[in-house]
């Protein structure tokens, strides 16, 4: 258990190496760039290895830069004080990824929010219902770069 064995298993099972992520001001962070279809296995591994505290799910829409939708999952190991960033990229045309809400219940609300704002289809999520936004904004995926809000002033 711990980061060492987690990094080793990540390399062994999924063939991804830990990279330093110095952009996190808060704490020492390692980044793993994984394939989207591995997310459930990685989440299970994270939980087994003691990365039990979920921080943030942050999707970034890189479509104007010619890339897809990047998903960043931030986790922390409370004992070791090490953070892990799981990064994966899904195509914007068909944004689909497995839900990991049953492994980390904290993600249930976060996935629901990102579904609503980005239109990411979290497969297996029990209640992908409108959460924060107004009914008129449903299906417009407001957080995507393709959505331009109507300006309030000219």
């Amino acid at each position, binding site marked *: 258990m711990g980061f060492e064995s987690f990094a080793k298993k990540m390399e062994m099972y999924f063939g991804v190496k830990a990279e330093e992520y110095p*952009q996190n001001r808060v704490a020492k962070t390692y980044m793993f760039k994984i394939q989207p279809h591995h997310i459930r296995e990685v989440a299970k591994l994270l939980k087994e290895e003691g990365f039990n505290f979920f921080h943030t799910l942050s999707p*970034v829409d890189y479509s104007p830069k010619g890339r897809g939708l990047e998903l960043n999952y931030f986790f922390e190991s409370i004992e070791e004080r090490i953070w892990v960033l799981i990064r994966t990229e899904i195509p914007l045309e068909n944004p689909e990824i497995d839900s990991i809400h049953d492994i980390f219940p*904290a993600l249930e609300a976060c996935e629901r929010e990102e579904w609503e704002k980005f239109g990411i289809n979290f497969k297996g999520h029990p209640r992908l219902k409108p959460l924060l936004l107004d009914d008129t904004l449903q299906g417009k995926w407001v957080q995507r770069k393709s959505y331009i809000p109507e300006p309030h002033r000219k």
Partner: protein
Amino acid sequence: MYKGAQIITQPVGKEGDLMVLNWGVQHPASGPMRIKVWLDGEKIVKVENDPGYVTRNLEKMLEYRTWENAVVNVERICFIDDLGTILNWALAVEKLADVEVPKNVQYFRVILAEVGRIVSHLIGIGGMFGALGVATPMMWVLALREYYLDFLEHYSGYRISTAAIVPGGVRFEPKKEDFDLLRKAVEETERRWDDYKEVFIDNPTLVERYKGIGIIPKELVFELGLRGPVARASGVDYDLRKRYPYSSYEDFDFKVVVKEEGDAYARFLVVLEEIEESVKIIKQALEGMPEGDKWKIRMPKKIKAGEAYSAVEWARGGIEYHVVSDGGTGAYRAKISAPSFMNIWALEYIAPGHKLADLATIFASLYICHGDLDR
């Protein structure tokens, strides 16, 4: 009689034998949020949160702002403690631009952040009493809060939504009168605090209503990623100020308030005692204020492409930003991960099994701000 006034279309709803109660949006204790409650007599069977009535989608708005004037949007995450959220924005932007602010600015930012925390916690305590239908503590803490607001008003010109911290420093150079007002506020707090504590802590009815109610076990804190006073009241020693010090928090001597019980009363005590710790920090910062006349560093208009992650311990828990820059004058994407949004989901786990009367106390003890719940 005016005809339109009679139209209330919904008949008394029924779902099986349970009564479904819409606790909110128009409810004295819920704030702008709906909590759907399934009731069996007075007993709560199931609870469902329905937030989203004050959503502004700040994340999208931030993409249309420059690095500096995004402060105005960021501070509106929650108006009660606006300073912590701006501090985090400033830290994130400085991380992106690789800028380090001088020590005196860091100390003054600590002062501002702690003032924000005190102001917010005072209202929190008043609100927890308010959930029991007694307004006296609320009035008392508001009177005390006024001294801190005087300081903020004299320094920045605004009582709330101060925009006092900007990327690269603080907005104005603090004057001697500002510090005098702050000292007065601290003295006033210390003078009144013993009386307040006597009334607040040893209140038998409050203990009767709060003790043993809404217990959050330690495991649930990890499962739901709960933050701030809610996590600390359940025995999780997690305070970003102590754990990952920022803005010179390592220079100050304070203790992280942790309670093991995890019930509503523990959460109340954590909020109450954190005010004392904040007062301690402010006094140390006032004494040990380093010399320095540079209060703001020039920030570049455009910041090089990259990303930054930043988190600070805000009044309601850790508030975390993931900011992405593409080399422009503003953020390409900013994700705001707010503590109230994480903490509110604990309600669905802990409220069932309690009486309807306890819903107000549990909800107040979760210390939610609707601004950062919806963003």
